[in-house]
């Protein structure tokens, strides 16, 4: 039992060797690794003891779990689910109540320093974390305790990575993304943002971590480069319409029917780092833009506080009224324009008065030297 490998677990779950091999090549491909890596993944899975995963839920809507268990490729889903075995996931596991909480303690003790902590959602800090209670105590405490003993942390989704809607202004509960929780043990954190993240991205990330026992290459913000180094816009299939200058102006116009670019109706594709336009959703079936809706930038930090999803220029907060950069700019430039005109008029009047001799002209008694 102690040396059970990933492969053993999978076989026990009834996954055939053929399916297992397929899964390994699929994952290698999803990760952008050369085909030779498929064998490496396979080898790792057959020989390495499986790494336990604690999957915790804070303030969240469970969309990450929902996405995860609907991984487009049924194979990936089965394999991964058996692979991570989810020693604890209060949404998916059979145990409940005290029994469930006991599993957390057991894992922490048995695998101290060796398990992966996957966090979905985030802890609220205000009122000592009272806005999110798990098993009778604040999630904040549960999270900190698990973090103290884990090997590394996966921040699932925009909640754990950035805060998401529960952290929207004015954020009354002070919902805080995992990496910003004060006093949290200093463990490596990988962020997999999205609301939710794409299932294939989640399974690939976790497969990578479990087989290679390290994180894939991360960008400056801690996201896996292979999925978050390009914007939706960079690989969007509507991009030729963008470059041509063909835009949907209204959702019911000719352009919308023809599949023009959604930039003018607020598409955030140009500012959003995610893999939707390449990996797509529901097993590569489609993604929001393909369905005719602009990207709302769900994997970006702060996307929930940027005003309407349907405006190109975002609202700027702090000006009391609804305003964007152009409205504020035109107002300021207009005011300066009026001031200049007034100044010009005043200068002219003054000049005329001087010429008429009403005022002494001092402009020519220069001082100083060259």
């Amino acid at each position, binding site marked *: 039992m102690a040396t059970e490998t990933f492969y053993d677990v999978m076989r026990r779950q009834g996954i055939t060797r053929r399916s297992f091999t397929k899964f390994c090549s699929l994952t290698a491909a999803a990760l952008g690794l050369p085909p030779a890596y498929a064998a490496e993944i396979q080898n790792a899975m057959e020989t390495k003891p499986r790494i336990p995963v604690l999957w915790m839920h804070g303030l969240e809507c469970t969309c990450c779990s929902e996405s995860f268990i609907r991984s487009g490729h049924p194979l990936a889903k089965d394999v991964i689910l058996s692979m991570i075995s989810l020693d604890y996931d209060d949404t998916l596991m059979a145990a409940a109540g005290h029994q469930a909480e006991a599993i957390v303690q057991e894992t922490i003790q048995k695998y101290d320093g060796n398990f992966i902590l996957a966090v979905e959602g985030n802890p609220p800090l205000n009122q000592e974390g009272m806005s999110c209670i798990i098993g009778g105590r604040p999630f904040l405490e549960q999270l900190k305790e698990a973090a103290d003993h884990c090997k590394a942390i996966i921040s699932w989704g925009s909640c754990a990575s950035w805060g998401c809607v529960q952290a929207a202004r004015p954020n009354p509960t002070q919902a805080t993304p995992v990496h910003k929780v004060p006093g949290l043990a200093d463990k490596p954190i990988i962020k997999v943002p999205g609301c939710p993240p794409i299932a294939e991205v989640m399974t690939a990330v976790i497969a990578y971590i479990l087989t290679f026992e390290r994180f894939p290459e991360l*960008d400056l913000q801690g996201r896996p480069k292979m999925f978050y180094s390009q914007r939706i816009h*960079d690989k969007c299939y509507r991009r030729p319409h963008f470059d*041509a200058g*063909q835009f949907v102006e209204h959702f019911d116009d000719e352009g919308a029917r023809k599949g023009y670019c959604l*930039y003018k109706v607020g598409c955030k594709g140009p*500012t959003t780092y995610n893999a939707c336009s390449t990996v797509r959703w529901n097993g590569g079936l489609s993604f929001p833009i393909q369905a005719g809706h602009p990207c709302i930038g769900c994997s970006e930090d702060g996307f929930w506080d940027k005003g309407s999803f349907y405006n190109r220029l975002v609202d700027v907060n702090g000006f009391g009224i609804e305003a964007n950069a152009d409205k504020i*700019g035109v107002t300021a430039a207009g005011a300066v324009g009026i001031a200049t005109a007034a*100044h010009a008029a005043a200068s002219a009047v003054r000049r005329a008065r001087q010429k008429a001799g009403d005022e002494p002209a001092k402009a020519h008694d220069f001082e*100083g030297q060259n």
Partner: protein
Amino acid sequence: MASTPVDDTPQGEPLVYVYEAPVRLWHWVNATAITLLFVTGYLIGSPPPSLNGEPSAHYLFGWIRFIHFSCGQIMAVGIIFRFYWSFVGNYFSREIIRPPVLSRKFWKGVMLETKSYALAEHSSRRYVGHNPLAILSMHVLFVWVAVFMVVTGLALYGEGEGPGWIHTVFTGPVLLLFGNNSLTVHTWHHFGMWAMVIFVLVHIYAAVREDILSREAIITSMISGWRKARKVTPID
């Protein structure tokens, strides 16, 4: 004051070579680039009406963005050049780039000029180059805003380019500064445009006004380089 070439007008007033050829060339190249950047930048934020037909037949938005990026790069190179020139150029080439902010006399000059522009009193001082208030406003509203536009502009450019040196040097750090959000960078780059519009409005007004009031060929000095000196006050 380093060697400033001085010549005499027919009336015996000394002429000073204020703006050297590279500065003049830079001024007009930069002004042209910025004007195009205004137009194309505004259109990037609020695109023109949609075109019909096959996408392969058009490249309108592509051209708008291409002009923006080219002018942006010209402006960026220009700013670097202008900074370099403030070290090798004449006395006046330093004024707006590295103003004497530590000199009390400079700030006194700023105060006096402010009063004069407020039409409260006449400035009794004359400067061959820019007056201290002009220096201050050009330094803040032009130099810093220009640097800001170049840095944020290159950061946005790097996003489209993908991994590479522009991405490493500009995009990554700028995104971190702006709360990890590219949209916020867009918004501030957009605000920067309006700051620059305000500078240009005031700048052109001040140049034309001075040209009329001082009875000196201020505007032509940015074309020929020469300006009448008479008795002048050094800025610091």
